[in-house]
């Protein structure tokens, strides 16, 4: 959403619109995580009054969708792909292959036996 988007480009990798959007979501999630966890604690705590818990539920459900972790998606940092991304290398499968064959990923070598 436009209200969260950075005014200037702030990622140094492949800057696809979807990568920028995902980065925005990550930042919003990080900023709102303590609040969400506090609300979740209130909701789960059965020793608190029912009214308070219901209010917390309402408040949590009314938070912006960008504050939710399920919105975050690992994308390839060199090609912007959203599918087939190795989370250890943050690369899509083809980018991973190209970089690994070029010897740019330390500790990765082509298997042969």
């Amino acid at each position, binding site marked *: 959403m436009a209200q969260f988007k950075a005014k200037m*480009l*702030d*990622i*140094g*990798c492949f800057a696809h619109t979807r*990568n920028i959007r*995902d*980065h925005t979501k*990550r*930042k919003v*999630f*990080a*900023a709102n*995580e*303590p609040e969400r*966890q506090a609300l*979740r*604690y*209130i*909701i*789960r*705590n*059965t*020793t608190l009054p029912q009214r308070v818990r219901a209010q917390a539920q309402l408040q949590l459900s009314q938070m912006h969708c960008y504050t939710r*972790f399920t919105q*975050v998606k*690992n994308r390839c*940092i060199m090609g912007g792909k959203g599918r087939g991304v190795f989370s250890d290398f*943050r690369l899509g499968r083809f980018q991973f292959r190209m970089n690994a064959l070029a010897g740019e990923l330390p500790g990765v070598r082509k298997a042969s036996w």
Partner: protein
Amino acid sequence: MAVARERVLELMKTQCRVFNTTFNPNGVRMGSRILHERLKGDAVASYYPPRIGTIKQLRSLYPEHTVIDEKEEDWVEHLTIAKSRGKENPKKKRTAAESKKFSKKR
């Protein structure tokens, strides 16, 4: 020999005090599980590498040096040339009378 329930509870209480956990003998759901979860926001937000080495950052880091931005220089040069040819942007209209777009010119 069976141990009395009070004794066991006492032990649990002491255990909780020593290890700084919540004393909850009845297993009531208190949501402490959520308080024990680590915050992952920082790790999540640092997935994409930050943009570094921009002209603006260099200027703020090294104010004693003059950092030349070639793109900006080209742009300024283009503007000055356009201005010398009388092709600069029109002046901002300050009053209502000036801004009448379709007023008849005589």
